[in-house]
């Protein structure tokens, strides 16, 4: 991946978050949560700043980021699509729904479409098992999704 240079105010934002947690190494996970919620993802450059601020190694920050699936090092699409692959959704056909999204958007799980409009991810139970299979696009939750609904869902976001 090409190195990106972080904007001055981005670096400041990360520093401020670290200060909020008193630059404590033991608060690393909380810092990562905060930074990701502001920036959307945690690329290597961001991890370097955090490591420096918390006076720890980049390897340790990287180790933590890659350990937890909630943290991501790649930017999400404009409309992040998440397919629930929890057991309840799986037995009600989530895999077919996932395959249909992959086929229509021509991307794999964890990737974004070329125009950056969509990305696909899998989740484990969003707590709406009554509506299985469940798909979320951004904040919106779609329940009882069938493979035949996929086209419609994508179209909702295509022309925005």
């Amino acid at each position, binding site marked *: 991946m090409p190195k990106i240079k972080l904007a001055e105010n981005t670096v400041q934002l990360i520093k401020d978050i670290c200060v909020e947690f008193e630059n404590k190494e033991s608060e690393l996970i909380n810092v990562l949560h905060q930074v990701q919620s502001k920036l959307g993802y945690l690329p290597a450059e961001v991890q370097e700043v955090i490591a420096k601020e918390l006076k720890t190694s980049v390897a340790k920050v990287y180790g933590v980021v890659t350990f937890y699936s909630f943290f991501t090092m790649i930017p999400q699409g404009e409309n992040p699509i998440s397919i629930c692959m929890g057991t309840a959704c799986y037995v009600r056909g989530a895999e077919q729904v996932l395959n249909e999204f992959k086929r229509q958007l021509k991307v794999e799980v964890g990737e974004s479409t070329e125009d950056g409009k969509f990305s696909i991810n899998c989740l484990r139970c969003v*707590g709406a098992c009554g509506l299985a299979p469940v798909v979320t696009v951004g904040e919106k939750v779609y329940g009882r999704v069938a493979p035949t609904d996929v086209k419609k869902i994508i179209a909702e976001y295509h022309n925005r």
Partner: protein
Amino acid sequence: MTDYKMHLLICGGTGCKASESDEIKNRLNQLIHDLGLEDEVQVVLTGCFGFCEKGPIVKVLPDNTFYVQVSPNDVVEIVEEHIVKGRPVKRLLYTDPTNDKQISDSKGMDFYKKQIRIALKNCGFINPENIDEYIARDGYQALGKCLSELTPEEVIKEVKDSGLRGRGGGGFPTGLKWEITKNVENDQKYVVCNADEGDPGAFMDRSILEGDPHSVLEAMAICGYCIGADKGLVYIRAEYPLAIQRLKIAIKQAEEYGLIGDDILGTGFNFHIELRYGAGAFVCGEETALIHSMEGLRGEPTFKPPFPSVSGYMGKPTNVNNVETFANIPVILNKGAEWFSKIGTEKSKGTKVFALAGKINNVGLIEVPMGTTLREVIYDIGGGIKDGKEFKAVQTGGPSGGCLTKEDLDIPIDYDNLLASGSMMGSGGMIVMDENDCMVSIAKFYLDFTLEESCGKCTPCRVGNKRLYELLDKITQGKGEEQDIEKLKDLSVVIKDTALCGLGQTSPNPVLSTINNFEHEYHAHVHDGKCPAGQCKSLLRYDIVEDLCTGCTLCFRNCPVGAISGERRAPHFIDQTLCIKCGVCYEKCKFNAITLT
């Protein structure tokens, strides 16, 4: 407080929120305001009612009318008819599927009849964002009693006598754990609430935190009093934003009321509670991994002993309990150990909350006394299998558990009976499967999960599970060989015996349990190249029967990959190399001209 004549409770659980319950609430508030009724009618967003299948749910008090599948468009009718004119809206009532009668009070519904609510006692009854409503239902009474009337030893004795066992999966006696932690000398100790809930397809703990957060906070303070800790930590998944928000509000309100903080109720007892966030790693539900994660490290488990009770968070004695375990505590102390221990079976007291999901009519959150049979859960409460299909199995214990079959329908559910039947209680996920579910695929699904979640620290789990997955994958592709089934069994046993933590030690359970109960299905894949449930795509084949095909072109127009060709009014053909076995043509053909073999 205003004396409202009427309350409208709207489900604010995750399932109902996903079906616009917020919008329902907003519209209700607006309309009630427009009619100038805001001093008479209160609109309250509650936690999950349990009957998620029929959500969004709106309940009207005092007459207990229980509206199901309400949409924002129904709001006007509810207000104009029910609230203004006092006439319930019949079309929004629940219809009993057995006799087509409408039932307006949830107490009369089969779904609720066999349930006893202890941990879920307040869920769906109070506004979780208002501490006064919790207090009005005996909230913080148990804490007050403990601090002013009972010694820590007396409280621990009560918890021990109740027979309560941990609801996080292990089933360890709670009172005993508290006693052990109490007896370790140290000037700093911690109480930790495990709200990581990693089982995919389970939402018990989240629902308790969303619906009744104070019950957990109160219990943590009581635990702190017993073991001598002044600090509590809730480890909760970042993926649960609503539960986090409700916990934050609850902590703030409890602090304002002097029920958490310094010198609680003037007794000199201090107890503070903070949140720590998980970041989506199943293994962090394991208590030693959880503690490492709270310390800001990778959440890798470490060998026990030492147990957290001796050396936990920051090396200090730490008492870890599950959310549901805590939620039982205030009720036990209010009603007494004797009352509690009368519910349940000999060795499993009280109730258990289950997240009932999968191929079942009434998906939802249920709480039943220990000793209830699977048959009662599936048929009486769950309303039977979806679409009239046949029951095949139910998985309890999630990825660490096993499946129970038709033969197990009548065993009373408790810790020991489930273990004896080759499954386990687990934390409460209950996934129902029907005749169309392939058990090899299910085992593969769980292994896929374990693989992704293994922390990689020890070889049996990291490499062994990968081998298991590859073998299962091979079988579902129809490439399985005679000896593969034996290989699966042998390898499973090795992993179980040698893995470091509970994740690896239990990860082969779904494999062993499906082989045990459904070995014939494995054989069918391996020997006959057939998937009896019709799920394994590589083993399916769609063909068009020339004689029956009218050449209507419907399948041709619907095939998503252009695998079908043929002239209008002439027989069509499927190109097997292109077909992705989606089954669309099979469903569309009106002339039964397409076969599935």
